[in-house]
């Protein structure tokens, strides 16, 4: 039996790493900065061991390891509890989060190490590539760069304490989220995930674009979180029905049984509120705009956000609360449609972007769309299976893009090409990730994507519709995956950062130059491990037949679901579609049989629409924020504040001042006048007494 203390330790260890890095390592300054990485890696290694133990314990217990929730506080008859909810779903998520996070931290040990800005071979290469005048410029830039953390920017480990502290917090928040037994507790960790992603996206906070992206991620996800909060309040407003049945209104296990008590209407609203939260967190249409911009953070952060921590939270919430969603056909249909539409919509934008990380970002949005689609057609286990597989290959792809950046110092694919010559490990691992993303047999992506399509096909009308969305998205996914591979690794090298004019470079990176070498082993090792997982996770975890040590359909049975059956026609269709996408990419970007520029010109309006991302950012910022909110709501509020609120306050002051001024006229300082007043007053009192017959 896995003790509850061990479960709490899973949350506490990364949190301790955060505290140690933030409050001990960072104040020590440069000499200790390097320790920060080891602190977080050690903590996460132990966390991973504990997670594996938790998985085994759940496997042995054939279901939930039940821990009694603890009382946090009581309001009248309502008990607010916190606790650990460890069931197969949580166990799977623990493995995903802690393993991905550990690999990302190890990779970060190499990636976050700064290269010296001056001297050494960097300066020599710069002199060769950019000429002496530019070298002088770069010198100026290096000197002007803001000094972060009180550690010299030239120090190779200057970023370590802050980075690894945030990473510890991020991982701890996500682990806390999946272990929560209570919806309020889950919401707290949910918001902590949002906070730490804000801190990490804005890690290079001295770059205006990074600060803006962090703010955007925080605000856009907050819009969804508002729906989540409303759902919580709505549940609380119905607490009487639940408490009468002996259920705790916020306990997740109790809520699983709550649907019949609440009735379909109430359940639909709760489900829609929770879904709004998931739409924000998992970057679904129409709140997807933050994710492509979240690229501003360090690449390993993107990797973690896209694979295991931030965006997975939304899908996890859907799967976690699925017994509630199941009761509302309306909510499920909406989820399926949103997911299917997002899958198609996001992939189409991925076709035209030039930034390798943005290609991956749009693919994440669309893969999350697949997961939502699976939840919507009533197959949360398949959604979790896809999340599990996606985590490995998407993390791998991002680490690969970081590795590429390590060499060429740009993310612009137009400046890459031919990298496979000096980055063989990166090339092979990213290729495996791309094939997996494209969904080609027998890699991980194939198994789960195929099961999603089968589940959609077997659904009702909505299922058939989203099946078509899914097939369309599969074609485009395969296309842009290989477009990325060809542009990055094949053909002629197009100069990397050396081809970027000084004026267009980010100041921090202005002094960098291309190094034609493979990334250090600390970076490639996690990628090789992930490549292995990307090949095997699909087939091993949920094999259609017995594999000896792993029984057939282990994943599905572990999550207590009947095994999905393999559907040959759909598997063949989806594979053909994916191969078609790869073929088209090969024709356009490898053999140049079809000119990509010519295609862009022919379909110019469509190309522009995609490059501008359907004008969604313009819609939000230009129309909603500037016009509706700024010119409409905020200016109206401003007018009310200036004229009505301020006017009332001013009136109160004006009344006091002018009443006083009028009354002051009476006070002349002439004692005889006062005497007259007193005398007249006495006369009046006397008259009143006499006429009223008093006294």
């Amino acid at each position: 039996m896995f003790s509850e203390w061990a479960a709490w330790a899973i949350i506490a260890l990364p949190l301790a790493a955060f505290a140690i890095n933030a409050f001990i390592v960072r104040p020590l300054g440069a000499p200790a900065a390097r320790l920060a990485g080891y602190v977080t890696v050690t903590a996460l290694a132990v966390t991973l061991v504990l997670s594996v133990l938790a998985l085994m314990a759940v496997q042995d217990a054939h279901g939930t390891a039940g821990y009694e929730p603890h009382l946090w506080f009581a309001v009248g008859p309502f008990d607010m509890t916190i606790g650990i909810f460890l069931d197969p779903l949580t166990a799977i998520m623990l493995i995903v989060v802690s393993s991905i996070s550990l690999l990302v931290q190890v990779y970060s040990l190499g990636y976050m190490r700064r290269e010296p800005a001056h001297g050494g071979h960097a300066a020599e290469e710069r002199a060769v590539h950019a000429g002496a005048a530019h070298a002088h410029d770069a010198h100026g830039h290096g000197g002007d760069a803001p000094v972060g953390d009180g550690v010299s920017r030239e120090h190779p480990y200057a970023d370590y304490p802050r980075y690894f502290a945030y990473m510890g917090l991020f991982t701890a928040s996500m682990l806390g989220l999946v272990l929560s037994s209570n919806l309020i507790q889950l919401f707290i960790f949910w918001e902590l995930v949002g906070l730490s992603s804000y801190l990490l996206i804005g890690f290079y906070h001295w770059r205006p674009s990074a600060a803006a992206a962090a703010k955007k991620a925080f605000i856009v996800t907050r819009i969804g979180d508002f729906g989540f909060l409303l759902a919580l309040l709505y549940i609380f407003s119905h607490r009487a029905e639940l408490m009468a049945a002996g259920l705790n209104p916020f306990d997740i296990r109790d809520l699983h049984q709550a649907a019949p008590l609440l009735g379909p209407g109430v359940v639909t609203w709760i489900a829609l509120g929770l879904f709004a939260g998931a739409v924000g967190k998992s970057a679904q249409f129409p709140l997807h705009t933050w994710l492509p911009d979240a690229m501003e953070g360090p690449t390993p952060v993107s990797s973690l956000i896209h694979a295991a921590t931030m965006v997975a939270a939304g899908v996890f919430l859907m799967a976690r609360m699925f017994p509630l969603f199941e009761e509302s056909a309306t909510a499920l249909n909406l989820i399926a449609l949103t997911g299917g539409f997002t899958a198609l919509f996001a992939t189409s934008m991925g076709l035209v972007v030039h930034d390798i990380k943005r290609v991956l970002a749009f693919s994440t949005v669309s893969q999350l769309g697949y997961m939502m689609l699976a939840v919507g057609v009533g197959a949360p286990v398949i959604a979790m299976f896809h999340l599990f597989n996606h985590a490995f290959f998407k993390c791998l792809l991002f680490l690969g893009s970081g590795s590429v950046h390590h060499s060429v110092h740009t993310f612009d694919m137009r400046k890459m090409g031919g990298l496979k010559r000096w980055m063989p490990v990166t090339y092979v691992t990213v290729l495996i990730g791309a094939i997996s993303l494209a969904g080609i047999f027998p890699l991980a992506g194939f198994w789960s994507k195929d099961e999603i399509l089968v589940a959609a096909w077997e659904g009702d009308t909505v299922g058939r519709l989203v099946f078509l969305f899914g097939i369309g998205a599969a074609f485009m996914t395969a296309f842009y995956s290989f477009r990325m591979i060809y542009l990055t690794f094949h053909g002629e090298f197009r100069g990397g950062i050396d081809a970027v004019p000084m004026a267009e470079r980010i100041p921090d990176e202005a002094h960098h130059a291309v190094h034609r070498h493979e990334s250090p082993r600390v970076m490639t090792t996690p990628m090789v491990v992930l490549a292995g997982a990307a090949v095997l996770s699909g087939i091993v975890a949920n094999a259609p037949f017995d594999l000896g040590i792993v029984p057939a359909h282990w994943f599905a049975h572990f999550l207590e679901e009947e095994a999905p059956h393999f559907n040959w026609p759909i598997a063949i269709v989806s594979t053909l579609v994916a191969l078609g996408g790869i073929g088209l990419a090969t024709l356009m970007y490898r053999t140049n049989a079809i000119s990509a520029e010519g295609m862009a010109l022919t379909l110019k309006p469509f190309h522009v629409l995609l490059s501008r991302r359907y004008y969604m950012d313009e819609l939000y910022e230009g129309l909603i924020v500037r016009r509706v909110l700024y010119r409409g709501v905020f200016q109206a509020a401003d007018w009310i504040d200036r004229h009505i609120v301020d006017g009332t306050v001013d009136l109160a002051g004006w009344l006091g001042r002018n009443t006083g001024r009028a009354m002051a006229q009476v006070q002349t300082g002439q004692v005889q006048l006062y005497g007259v007043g007193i005398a007249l007053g006495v006369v009046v009192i006397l008259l009143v007494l006499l006429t009223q017959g008093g006294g």
Partner: protein
Amino acid sequence: MLERLLILSAIVFCIGMYGVLSRRNIIAMLMSIELMFNAVNIALVAISRYVTPAAVRAAGPTEANAASVLTGQTLAAFVIVVAAAEVALGLALLITLVRQRDTVDITQVNLLRR
């Protein structure tokens, strides 16, 4: 008899009040205040005489009833004492005023206005 005395008292009081309210000279005002005090004294004595029973009045005050019979007169004597003190204080203030500001005009004394 009482009625006439009270009318006399009222007339004297009003003359005094008129003087207080209308004269600018502070000395004249103090004199007018004296008139008002004396009007009150007349009223006090008259009412005291009126409320004392005829028998007691004829027999004159004794050791036993002196306190009740002579109440009005005693009060009038107190008023005279207070009036004397008031005049002493008023004149002292007036002298200080004259030294400071060289005036006895009440309309010039409006320091509280500022």
